């Protein structure tokens, strides 16, 4: 089992883990030859939210080498907090005054403990060399356990819609969060998106009319149900807190596509970097909540 790579884009890596860390203190990272997967699938998560993300190796790393008996895949569980602290130290966006020259990430063993080791070399303000090394403790997962990691099942979504910028959604949901535990999300295939809460004291509905539906959704609907009414709204009720946790990914998002499977779940694809370039995507799965209305 060998693994070594240079981190080329520490800032993006840092922001991805920033979004992940707010969701789960421990995460699973699976490295394959081309893709880094980050998985947060704890059942204890707020409102059942999960993250299944894929980041193209090329978008973060260079000199990437991986070798294992499990088809050159290495899967590990580690503290997202510790990883975040490490990347903060490596990231140039942090306030550290050291100019980072190289960051090498590799699998190592220290005192019988498997670690993901980060070696950062840089320059001080005075231009002298400085080296920082972080060892993040990991648990290497057995292939059998890795095989048991299953993405949640969901039907073909009823609607795909591009969300407004997440930093615009965030203050709105921030206001709604103390008012109601449940948030209704509705969208149609004609650019309409609604966020609503219903309580004894207040009903609040926020509506966007000019969102874009993605091609994928429109072609799918044309193929299968050509006469489906594009104005039909599909809704799902989710935990307000879990939706707010998803919005923490605004730090890394460029484009976000929301899919609604009516009364079942919603899936949110947070694209990292350019949509066309698709360096990676954080996929949030939020199950629908059933309450008596």
């Amino acid at each position: 089992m060998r693994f070594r790579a240079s981190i080329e884009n520490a800032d993006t890596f840092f922001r991805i883990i920033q979004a992940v860390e707010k969701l789960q203190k421990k995460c699973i990272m699976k490295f394959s030859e081309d893709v880094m997967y980050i998985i947060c699938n704890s059942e204890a998560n707020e409102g059942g939210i999960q993250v299944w993300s894929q980041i193209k190796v090329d978008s973060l790393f260079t000199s990437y080498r991986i070798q294992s008996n499990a088809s050159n895949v290495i899967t590990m569980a580690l503290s997202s907090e510790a990883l975040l602290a490490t990347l903060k130290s490596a990231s140039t966006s942090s306030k550290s005054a050291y100019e980072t020259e190289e960051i090498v990430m590799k699998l190592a063993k220290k005192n019988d403990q498997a670690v993901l080791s980060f070696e950062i070399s840089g320059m001080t303000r005075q231009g002298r060399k400085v080296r920082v090394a972080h060892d993040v403790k990991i648990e290497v997962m057995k292939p059998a356990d890795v095989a048991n990691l299953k993405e949640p099942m969901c039907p073909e979504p009823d609607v795909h819609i591009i969300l407004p910028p997440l930093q615009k959604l965030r203050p709105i949901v921030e206001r709604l969060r103390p008012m109601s535990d449940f948030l209704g999300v509705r969208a149609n295939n004609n650019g309409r998106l609604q966020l609503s809460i219903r309580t004894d004291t207040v009903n609040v509905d926020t509506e966007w009319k000019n969102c874009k539906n993605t091609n994928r959704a429109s072609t799918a609907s044309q193929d299968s149900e050509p006469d489906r009414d594009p104005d039909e709204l599909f809704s799902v009720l989710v935990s307000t807190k879990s939706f707010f946790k998803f919005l923490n990914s605004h730090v890394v998002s460029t484009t976000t596509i929301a899919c609604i499977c009516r009364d079942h779940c919603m899936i949110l694809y947070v694209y990292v970097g350019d949509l066309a370039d698709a360096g990676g995507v954080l996929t949030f799965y939020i199950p629908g909540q059933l309450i008596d209305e």
Partner: protein
Amino acid sequence: MSQNGEESEEVHLPPVLKASVHDVRYFAALLRGVNFVNRATVTITKTGFVVVVEEARTLLATAYIFADIFDEYTYNSESPAAPQDSQNSEPEEEDNSAFEIPLNTLIECLNIFGTAGSSGSAAGAGAATGKYKKWKRGGDDSDQEGDDDDAHGRRSSNGTGGNKSIDHYFGNAADKGTGMRMTYAGSGFPLTLLIAEDAAGPTTTCEITTYEAEANLQLPFEPDRMVLKIILKSSWLRDALSELDPSCDKLTFIGNPPPAVINGKQRQQPRLANGTPMLRIQAAGTFGSTEMDYPNDRDVLETFECTRPVTFSYRFGHISRTLRALQSSTKTSLRIDDEGLLSLQFLMPSPKAKAEAAADAFIEFRCLPLDDELV
């Protein structure tokens, strides 16, 4: 769902209240000034409305919100028989409609986009900062960020057809605020708000449940029983209250009559010749005590009228409830009557230019003294 307001307007009798404003920050600041208890009584009249909040049967806070702070304001009496020609200056005695409302919910709804000048949690949108936004006159340069989002678009999109010329909004054109249209169909109906930032952005509809109004505490202040009257810059009082140790439980106002005018000029000393200050604010906490002495200097106390030495104490927790109102207020009038009833009036400057003759709204707090200080 967002058409509720309009529908009720057409199907039923005209709504009791229809009011709209292109920027809710002033309105929100006035509401925030009395937002220390969630349940507030709102009384609507044709000249504006009053929001009353009380605490512990001791403290009464009232925000007077005049009709002209809105771009559009229409009141239709629920009881058509009521006299419409009353010239009484007390709004309470006029024809009115009253209900109770969860005040904090109303404020949070107005600030749904984080652009109503939040004093609370910093919003992610960037336009609102964690700090309380100070109100500016219409002509002032705005410190709000945001791109040119013209008032035309906002107003037409909101369908607010006020009678006023559009020109006076240009002063605020760079302000990216939240516009609002509010309707109240009458007793038993929710208060409905339609909120939007601009034509391109989202719209929010809020229906806030209203409750039957209950009688509020009455603390009448009779001017002929007044023993102390001070007008000062609000910042002096705000600084004083914020500097006090929060562990203080009692706050005392001490006033002494000004010295006789000698040779046409007053002594400008914090303490009089015999060591007594003009105005002293005194408080005692766990680790010590504090006194703040103010001289009869026009820069500090614009008006100082005191007929006899006055000492009255209040619960600090009650007086510090005024801090939110003090934040956006410019001038404070402090009055105490012979039984210690305290009246604090905070002038809340209107963002509109003086030329429009828009009256400044104000917030008043009245508070009963602590029993042991009754003379």
